[in-house]
C-alpha cells in the first residue's frame, strides 16, 4: 500500500499515470512540480518502506540511456541500460539500492516514448560500428525490478514495439518477480529475454524478503519458455552456506525439471559482494542477517567479498554442476572480477 502518490502536474492526465493509480492501492494523491525537489532530498531510512512507502510519478530527465557497467558485458557486445523506475517493492537483504538512493520511495517514470526515442538514437549510432552478427543490448532493471509492477506501469508493450522493429537490438528484462502477464500478452520475440535472478529456496526465503519464492519464479520461467519467450538465469548473488553445493544441486534439479535448460539464453553467476557503503547499510538494516557471519574481507577494489580462493571455488563448483547438466560453456558467464 502506497501512503502518498506525488505526481508531477504535467503528467497527471497521462494514461500511464492513470493506470498506475488504478492498479496500485494508495491513500492520498498530491500534485507537485518536479519530483527531484523532494525525492532523496532528505535521508529517509530505508526500512521505512515497510510501513510508510510513498511513490512519485514523474518524467525522467537528463541522460535517458546510459552505458552499462562492465558486469553486464555478457558477450563482448555494447550494453546500455535505461531507467523506467527507481527503487523496488521487494526487500532483498543484500540489495544495493539500500545504499544508493537516499530514500526507499518509489519513482515511476512515464515518458517512455522519450526513452525509446533515445534508444533509437543509440541503436542507430552503435549499429554501424558493429560487425553484422553483433547485437546492441539494452537492459531494464538497474534501479528497480523490471516486472514486479509491470501490470501497473504498463510500459513493456511500448518497448516491445521498438525491439520488433530493431532486430539487432536485444532487451534484457531482469526480475525477481513472477509477474509475467504483461509479457505473456505479447508476441514472443527472439531479441527480448526475461532473466530471472535465482537462489536456492531456503536461501531466498532467508534473504530475498517479500519476493516470490524460488519455486514461483521457476514456474513463471517455465510458462514463458512454453509460450515461446526467451528466458535467462542470473545465479547472483551466490551466498555461501554450509550446504551450498547441495542447495545449488537441488536448485538445478528443480530448474531441469521445469525448463529446457539447453534453450535458456544464458546463465550468469556471481558471488555476493558489497561496496563499503552498502555493506554498512546491510549491517544497519539487517543486523540479524547471517550474511554478517560470513567470511567476508575487504577485497582488492575496496568491496566487501568472500576471500578470492573462496569465490573462485564457489564459482567453479557452480560451473561444474552446470556443465554436468549439458549446458553449453558459451552460455555460462562467471562473474570473475580478476
Amino acid at each position, binding site marked *: 500500500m502506497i501512503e*502518498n502518490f*506525488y505526481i508531477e502536474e504535467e503528467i497527471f492526465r497521462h494514461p500511464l499515470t492513470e493506470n498506475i493509480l488504478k492498479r496500485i492501492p494508495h491513500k*492520498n494523491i*498530491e500534485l*507537485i512540480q518536479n519530483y527531484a525537489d*523532494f525525492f532523496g*532530498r*532528505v*535521508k*529517509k*531510512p530505508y526500512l*521505512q518502506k515497510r*510501513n*510508510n512507502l510513498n511513490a512519485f510519478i514523474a518524467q525522467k530527465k537528463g541522460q535517458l540511456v546510459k552505458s552499462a557497467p562492465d558486469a553486464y558485458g555478457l558477450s563482448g557486445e555494447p550494453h546500455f541500460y535505461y531507467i523506467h523506475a527507481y527503487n523496488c517493492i521487494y526487500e532483498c537483504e543484500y540489495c544495493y539500492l539500500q545504499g544508493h538512493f*537516499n530514500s526507499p520511495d518509489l519513482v515511476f517514470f512515464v515518458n517512455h516514448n522519450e526513452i525509446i526515442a533515445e534508444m533509437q538514437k543509440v541503436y542507430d549510432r552503435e549499429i554501424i560500428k558493429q560487425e553484422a552478427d553483433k547485437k546492441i543490448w539494452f537492459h531494464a532493471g538497474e534501479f528497480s525490478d523490471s516486472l514486479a509492477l509491470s501490470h501497473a506501469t504498463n510500459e513493456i508493450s511500448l518497448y516491445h514495439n521498438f525491439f520488433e522493429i530493431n532486430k539487432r537490438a536485444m532487451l534484457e528484462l531482469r526480475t525477481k518477480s513472477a509477474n509475467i502477464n504483461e509479457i505473456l500478452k505479447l508476441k514472443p520475440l527472439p531479441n527480448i529475454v526475461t532473466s530471472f535472478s535465482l537462489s536456492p529456496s531456503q536461501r531466498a526465503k532467508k534473504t530475498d524478503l517479500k519476493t516470490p519464492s524460488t519455486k514461483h519464479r521457476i514456474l513463471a520461467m517455465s510458462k514463458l519458455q512454453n509460450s515461446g519467450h526467451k528466458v535467462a538465469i542470473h545465479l547472483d548473488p551466490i551466498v555461501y552456506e554450509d550446504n551450498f553445493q547441495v542447495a545449488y544441486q537441488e536448485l538445478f534439479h528443480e530448474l531441469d525439471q521445469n525448463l529446457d535448460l539447453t534453450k535458456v539464453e544464458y546463465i550468469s553467476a556471481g558471488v555476493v559482494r558489497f561496496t563499503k557503503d552498502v555493506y554498512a547499510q546491510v549491517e544497519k538494516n539487517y*543486523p*540479524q*542477517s*547471517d550474511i*554478517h*557471519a560470513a*567470511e567476508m*574481507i*575487504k*577485497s*582488492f577494489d575496496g568491496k566487501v567479498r*568472500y*576471500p*578470492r*580462493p*573462496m*569465490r*573462485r*571455488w*564457489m564459482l*567453479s563448483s557452480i560451473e561444474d554442476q552446470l556443465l554436468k547438466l549439458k549446458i553449453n560453456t558459451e552460455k555460462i558467464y562467471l562473474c570473475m572480477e580478476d
Partner: protein
Amino acid sequence: MNKPLLVFAHPGEAAAFLEQTQKAKLDPTVYFPPAIQPLAGKLHTCSRYDVLITGEGIFSAMNKTLLAASQGVKYSSIINLGICAGLNSKLAINDFYKIRTVYAHNGNAPMFQSFPCHELNSDSEIKSADLMSTFDRVLEQAQAKELNIFAPLVDREAYGMAWAAKELNIEFMAYKLISDLPYQNGHEDEAQNICESIKEQSSLFSEKIYYEFQSKIAPYLDSKEHIQSTANNIKSDTYSQLIQNKDMHFTVSMSKALGKSLKKLELKGVDLEKVHLLADGLVKNYPDWRPKQRASELLKAISEMLNPFRTQLSKNLEELINLGLTPQIKDRINIKWDKDFEKRGFQINTWIENEEHRKQLVDAINSIDLEKFTQIQDGNL
C-alpha cells in the same frame, strides 16, 4: 539503573511532569560545574527521570541537551516530549504520535541528515509519523503543504535534541501531541491567534502528554526487552562471563573483537557453550599462561570457527610448505602469505650469514611446489 532524560522545549509542555518531580524526592546531585550553569537549560530531577527545558529553536535545544546529557549522569535515553503542528487534513488536534524519523528544514531547503528514532515495544500502540523541525514557525498553508511532503508533523526543536543524542551515542525517542493545524490558517492574524490559544491550553496539553507517557511509554522504558536492546546485543551471558573471568584478560580492543565475534557465532547458529568449553580448556591446560595470552588464544580459536575456509586454506599451505623444508632451515625461515588471500604467492623472511644459509634458502625455495601453492590460493582445495 540509568534513567531517561525527558526533554521539553517549553515549561508549559512540561508542567505536568514538573509537578511530579516536585512531589518525588529530589536527587541532590549537582549536575553542572558553576562555569557551565548559565549556559545550561533548566534541569529538574526525580528518581525515575530527569526533566530538561531547553527553550525555543533547534540550536538552543541542541546545546542544552548536549550539556545536560554529558554532565555526570549517564542517561539510558533522551526522550523529547511536547506539542507539534499537524500539516494535513488527516491529522487532528490532541492526536498523540510516536515520531519515526526527525528531519529539519532551514527555511530555504530541507537538511539532508535525518535522525531515525529508537523503537520501544509499546510503539505499536501509538500511531507513528515523521516530524520536521523548522528554523521558523510554520504558520501558513502554502508552507505547510510543501513541508507535508517530507513529514506531516512539524516542531522547532526535536532535530536539535536528536542531534545531541546522536553525538552522545544515547538512544533518542520523540513523542508529540498535535496542538495546531497550520494548513487551516488563512492569513497571518489568524495564525498569531493560534499561538496565543496554544499558550492558553498548554497545561491541558501537558496533562495529556503526561497521561500518554505514563500509560504507554514509561512501563516499557523499564522493561527487560528495552534494557537488552541497549546492551551489546548479544543474547546470551557469554560476553559478560568471559570479560569477568579472572583467568582471562581482554584489553579494550580485544573486548570489542570478542563482542563482535560472539555476535557472529550467534548469527551462524553456533551454540555458545562451545566457547565456554574452549575457555575452560585454556585455563585448565595452560595454567602458566598469562590471562591476556589465554584471551588472545581464545579469540584466535573463535576466529577459526568463524573462518573455516581461510583456516583450512592456511593449513593446506602450511602442510605443503612443511613437506619440503629441512629441519635445519625450518627454524630460521619465516614464510608468510596474504592472510585475506587477495594476493597470490608468498613472502620469505630469513637471515643469511654464510654460504650454507644461502644454499639452505635456495633449497627451501626450490622445495616449495609453486604450482600447487598457487592452485590452493586459487581455491582448488
